């Protein structure tokens, strides 16, 4: 990363002009070190979230209750691996390698979305994750399709398309459960109860406590504050939950005619901070699983690299 880059007045002027006319910065353009740094942080965190986020859903692949649901779930978790790869590649255009990002994750230096530190204890969690967690992600990510950094914006277009499919399948799981047997309906309601508050907290702390928001908005990376997006999301849930014939565990949800936005009850930010600080239900488990896959796969990666080197050496000999 270009931490100590020389002052480049022409570069800065171009950057400012691009941001001012709401256009795109591309990898070879000059950009301020802070901007690059903020992007690497946000994009790699997003990539890590996709990868760690595979685990809670992979937990149900082998137990999916019908073959069709098993196929859909497999495809969804596989999509998440694809999103992670795509985002790592987009982040590499900023000069940080995937290996560096992986190291940062495994060393506990890089974050991923805290939501994935909650356990998936029932099949209905597959529905709640799709509907609420992916729903919150889409609400966050659709504006990112207009982010000022070109590779990020383009990556988000594709990712949002697939996330929309994920959200629909989650909603469909809950719909099927809520119209099923009483036991299935109870399973669905329990999942909605557990995932509601954590999904609202995915938008991050209230704007007043969010250190990165204002800068990100000035750079046209973020377009809306955390609270505005959260309120929009609550409005979406409040309408769709009626179709599900389930309830949201928050008696304070209502549309505020004065502010023209959705109000909701207080969230337990102390819990959010606890989970963020590594004291959630599954933090250690998620990291251990990622490390184990990485460590157990080391000999495979070494073998592939050694084989590729031998092949290329033998091709060189043949060419000589």
């Amino acid at each position, binding site marked *: 990363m270009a931490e100590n880059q020389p002052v480049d007045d022409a570069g800065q002027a171009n950057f400012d002009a691009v941001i001012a006319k709401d256009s795109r910065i591309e990898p070879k353009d000059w950009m301020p070190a802070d901007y690059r740094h903020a992007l690497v942080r946000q994009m790699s965190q997003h990539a890590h979230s996709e990868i760690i986020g595979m685990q809670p859903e992979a937990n149900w692949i082998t137990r999916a209750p019908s*073959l069709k649901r098993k196929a859909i779930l497999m495809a969804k978790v596989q999509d998440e691996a694809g999103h992670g790869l795509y985002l790592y590649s987009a982040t590499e255009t900023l000069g940080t390698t995937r290996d560096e990002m992986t190291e940062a994750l495994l060393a506990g230096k890089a974050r991923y979305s805290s939501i994935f530190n909650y356990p998936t204890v029932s099949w209905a969690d597959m529905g709640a994750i799709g509907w609420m967690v992916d729903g919150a992600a889409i609400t966050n990510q659709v504006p990112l399709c207009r982010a000022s950094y070109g590779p990020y914006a383009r990556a988000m277009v594709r990712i949002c398309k697939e996330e929309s499919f994920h959200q629909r399948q989650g909603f469909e799981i809950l719909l099927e459960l809520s119209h099923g047997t009483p036991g299935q309906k109870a399973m669905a309601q329990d999942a909605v109860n557990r995932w509601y508050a954590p999904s609202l907290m995915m938008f991050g702390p209230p704007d007043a406590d969010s250190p990165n928001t204002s800068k990100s908005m000035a750079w046209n990376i973020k377009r809306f504050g955390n609270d505005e997006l959260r309120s929009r999301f609550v409005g979406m849930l409040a309408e769709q939950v009626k179709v599900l014939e389930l309830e949201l565990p928050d008696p304070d949800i209502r549309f505020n005619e004065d502010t023209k936005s959705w109000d909701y009850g207080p969230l337990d930010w102390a819990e959010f901070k606890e989970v963020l600080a590594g004291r959630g239900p599954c933090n250690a488990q998620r990291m251990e699983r990622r490390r184990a896959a990485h460590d157990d796969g080391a000999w495979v990666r070494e073998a592939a690299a*050694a084989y590729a080197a031998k092949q290329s050496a033998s091709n060189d000999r043949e060419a000589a």
Partner: protein
Amino acid sequence: MIPTGSHHSQARDGSLAGVGPSTGSHHRNPTPYSLGDSSASATRITPGNALRPEDIALAAAEGTAHPREAVAEYALRLGDDALILAQRLGHWISRGPELEEDVALGNIALDQLGHARSFLTYAGAAWGKSEDDLAYYRREPEFRSAHLFEQPNGDFAVTIARQFIAASYQYLLYRELTRSSDPMLAAIAGKAVKEVDYHLDHSTQWVLRLAGGTEESNRRMIAGLELMWPFVGELFEDDPLIAEVGDAGVVPSSLKEEFDRATAAVLAEAGVEVPAHPMATGGGRHGRHSEHLGYLLAEMQVLAREYPGASW
């Protein structure tokens, strides 16, 4: 990064394979016997043209797909092999040695699951049962999978060894099955063979890489092949059902020579010996399974059986 060649893009394109449109959707192709759009990619689903399990279920409901008993029993064998393998491979997703392999193994699992759903749906048409009735409500001795597919994943080399044998076998089998006198089996095989062709390429490349990579990977690849090879024999055994199925099926022993030749060629290129172990006694086709299947079924069936009769 692992040089995965063209696998990655194929795998991503196939990420929705097996999903298809939701049930009850209008399908453009009125005949379930179509081989699908001839321009269809092996890994990209083309809803409305490609043969889907839902099409087969619809044909069964309308009475246009009704296999005779022996053909249904035969389809059950092929479906169970694919189902058990998909269940095994599904475990790798989020545990692969590299993200590219999470995608690739996930893609192969999805393909296998798709084949399983088609074969099981067709088999079930003979008995008024759905794919899920057969997958979730049969007991262990009622499964017809061969022991190879039941074997635990082991390390990545063990999985690759199992994949290499499975894909080599399934490729030859499905290629021949496209000429089945039973149009539905031919149609299912026509779709499956294109996908298994890719599975064979994937496992072949990995056998070469692991055997020719480092000392450790060479040792592990050889150990994986030694562990899996005894289960080759069962795949090529003929029995009375095969005679009954006649030209609707493929005689397993007729594939053995080409299997031996093709796998020996890859192993020779990899510089490893074809394992010389005696073949294990099989029995899977008649409901006598390995010690491993019970655990696999317990996990696969637990939720469905907790809510009998529920829909999902």
